[in-house]
């Protein structure tokens, strides 16, 4: 039985239509509020009726997200949002399925589901709120906490290395990989909208401030004074330049990215690396993703990569319809009476 859904046809929504009647209960000043607002503002542009949108989450502060969206929602168990979302999508591929998750939920306990969702290129869109801390459990280090971080569960500093989520998603095969900030509403809306339009496993890492347990984790990247020198905005077909007056650029020296000074007369913008989102060779994406791990390099935001590849859900549906076309739809007679049967009279 095919589960039918209605087309958008003429329905016009505003952001309000996507707000549920539940009181939002994050801490005051939490970056999650902004992410929610940007999703609600973007949703009218998804081209989907709201009953065809499903938000799935795991456990953590970010995972309360579905309760606040006036769509279908499923607040799952810790780490399993990716797997639950996969089931929703396969059961009814016409639904638009989103996952709201955090760094702990998705990269620690849910790591396995995350990489396999990317590998299979299931048409599910994942927004990972990365605050580099466990918020809901009150302040333990997370898999994205920087090495040496002092937290409640690492009073002498962590000794483990953090995950680079963009690298992980790219390596696992996600076909849309982007990064944005809670503090940059326009940019975040843009990323959300583009993920909505993408077919395949889409991943947006959102650097999100947790004022209670990890305040200011990203302030270098979000404060007016320091942002220009520390953030580089990726745009397809554009050179990699940054700085308050776009006076700095990134050049590729073989496989080594180097920061160049565009004001010294020796280098020009023509020497800069031109960003190509659609490059299906991930090598440059890895180089870009590494920026955030190299001291004195700007942290890239924007779409790292977007390419088109058959999705698991589409191929599965196709396989079923091919086989049904060949064999005809299944019937009880075919099920039970085809292999070696005999009659007792």
């Amino acid at each position, binding site marked *: 039985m095919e589960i039918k859904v209605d087309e958008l046809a003429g329905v016009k929504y505003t952001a309000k239509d996507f707000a549920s009647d539940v009181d939002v209960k994050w801490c005051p000043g939490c970056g999650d509020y902004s992410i929610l607002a940007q999703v609600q503002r973007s949703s009218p542009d998804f081209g989907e009726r709201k009953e065809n949108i499903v938000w799935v989450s795991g456990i953590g502060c970010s995972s309360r997200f579905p*309760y606040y969206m006036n769509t*279908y929602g499923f607040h799952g168990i810790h780490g399993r949002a990716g797997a639950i979302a996969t089931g929703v999508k396969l059961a009814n591929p016409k639904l638009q399925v989103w996952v709201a998750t955090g760094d702990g939920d998705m990269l620690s306990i849910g790591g*396995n589901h995350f990489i396999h969702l990317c590998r299979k290129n299931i048409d599910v869109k994942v927004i990972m709120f990365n605050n580099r801390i466990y918020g809901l459990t009150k302040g333990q280090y997370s898999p994205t906490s920087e090495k040496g971080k002092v937290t409640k569960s690492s009073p002498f500093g962590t000794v483990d290395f953090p995950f680079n989520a963009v690298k992980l998603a790219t390596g696992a095969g996600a076909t849309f990989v982007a990064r944005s900030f809670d503090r940059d509403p326009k940019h975040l809306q843009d990323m959300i909208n583009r993920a909505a339009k993408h077919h395949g496993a889409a991943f947006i890492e959102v650097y999100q401030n947790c004022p209670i347990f990890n305040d200011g984790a990203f302030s270098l990247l979000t404060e007016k004074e320091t942002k220009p020198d520390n953030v580089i905005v990726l745009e397809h077909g554009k050179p990699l330049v940054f700085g308050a007056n776009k006076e700095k650029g990134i050049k590729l020296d073989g496989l080594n990215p180097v920061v160049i000074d565009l004001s010294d007369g020796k280098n020009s913008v023509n020497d800069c690396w031109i960003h190509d989102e659609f490059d299906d060779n991930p090598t440059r994406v890895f180089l870009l993703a590494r920026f955030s791990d190299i001291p004195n390099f700007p942290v890239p935001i924007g779409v790292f990569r977007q390419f088109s590849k058959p999705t698991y859900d589409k191929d599965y549906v196709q396989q079923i319809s091919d086989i049904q076309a060949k064999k005809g739809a299944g019937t*009880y007679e075919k099920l039970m009476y085809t292999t070696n049967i005999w009659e*007792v009279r």
Partner: protein
Amino acid sequence: MEKEKTQEKEIQSLTEVTVRFAGDSGDGMQLSGSQFTETTAIVGNDLSTLPDFPAEIRAPAGSLAGVSGFQLHFSSSDIQTPGDSPDVLVAMNPAALKVNLKDLKPNATIIANSNAFDAKNLKLALYDTNPLEDGSLAGYNVIPVPLTQLTMTALQDLDLSVKEKDKCKNFFALGIMYWIYNRPIDVTSKWIESKFARKPLILEANKRALQAGYNYGETTEIFTTRYEIKPARLPKGIYRNVSGNEAVALGFVAASLKSGLNLFLGSYPITPASEILQELSKYKDFGVITFQAEDEIAGIASAIGASFAGSLAVTTTSGPGLSLKTEAIGLAVMTELPLVIVDVQRGGPSTGLPTKTEQADLLQALYGRHGEAPIIVLSAQSPADCYFMSVEACRLAIKYMTPVLLLTDGYLAFGSEPLRIPEFKDLPEIPVNFRKDAEGFHPYLRDENLARPWAIPGTPGLEHRIGGLEKKDIYGNISYDPENHQVMVNKRKEKIEKAQQDVPDIIVEGDQQGELLVLGWGSTYGAIKEAINHVKAQGYQVSQAHIKYIHPFPKNLGDVLRKFKKILLPELNMGQMATVIRSTFLIDVIQFNKVQGQPLKVSEVENKIKEVLGGQNGN
């Protein structure tokens, strides 16, 4: 000449025979066994089978650890088990002989591949001398057959390697067995033709080996007797042979057809449950989605997602996987979504005995979740019964919007017996009412069965959020209210108890009251039934009752138990059902427990019954 010789051979009529094929895991014994089974089924005997194979896929050739066996019990009357002890053993090498000898009946026939009894294999099987020659098998009817050599000769002009030819010897052995038991070879010939359609030489070789084996039986003087086992007088109908795993898969597809829902299986390969996944993956023409997940948890989590979105969602596993799935089962309890979990029990704990059978997951099935998390628990009592119970599990899951856990085990999963195929109209109805009406909708409203509405994404006006946090009664919003928690815990419990209205009364076979009731559950049904038949024939008065609905129990179970002075409860664990019976009814039972990875034997139950009754057989 040849013909005359044949006519001299005596044909003896038998009512039942148990044969066991045994060899190296690479010898194709499972294949010989299952082919003999197919043919025997089509000939019309009642039958029951049990494969027995090592956990290692290919232990060293010729070693004791690598022996794989397939046992088949067939009869001209109704039978329930694969038989305690074989009448005939086909032993492809010394290790197979050594491992299986202790199980054979006195005077059993042993057909041994004499070519394999060379110095190397004898040493691997820890024989100092050749048992075929040293007189140690004097109590048996030993028939040495140079199977390897005969197969090579039969295939000598085929352009195949020695290894490829050698692989055909299981068909030669099968041919001999067909001749001895007077069965046609064409079912297997046809199977070979379809299986090896793309490898014409192998096809030819296997067919020839089969025919040569058959001819060998007919022409040599080694075999003086052929046996005939008349078709069984089974109830009228159309039959097919099914293993338990196959039956579970068929039941799910049937339930999908009956309910009109798409079937979604989220699963991760695990012995001995993988065949359900494999079997279901064939049914794409039925729209079945088999999602082979990245792990056990994703298997069930994807199924829960699919259930939320309106599929008939199932997940299949064995003990270790069930442990991993428990948190998610709790989520399905909380979100009150229909979900069927099949646990094909195996020897535990931990990795335990993956290919062996056990009933030791009962308490985990009933109680193995944190919090108050009642679910419906069912069990199947025979391979064919797996079909009906899997349909039933789906029906109850949907009717009560709840997870249902179906317990089978390795013995049922791999064992097989004829299934009388029910007509589609005779299967229970599985009505599905997706909520459509937005008027007055709340996610945790309840119907007369206390089930909440199934409102699936895509339905306008019913957008709602569910999850693992406690729900406000009726409205489904998050609620931390103490009284509300109590209300919801009560409602979830009452709902499962309510399902007792769908549980048929337990049937007592035999006298309805008396000295002894043998109570069982799950796969022990057959052994208990045959044991009771035996002791009754000796004048004992014993009744049998078998539990299939474990939670909730049948309404009349307590009353039934109280009508007997003694209750004997055999189970393949240390007394888990005994614990449940005692705590539910405050009735004591006599435990009979066996945890050896092997099914109950008829003789074991028989002896225990006699022990309990202390020779009070009324004589």
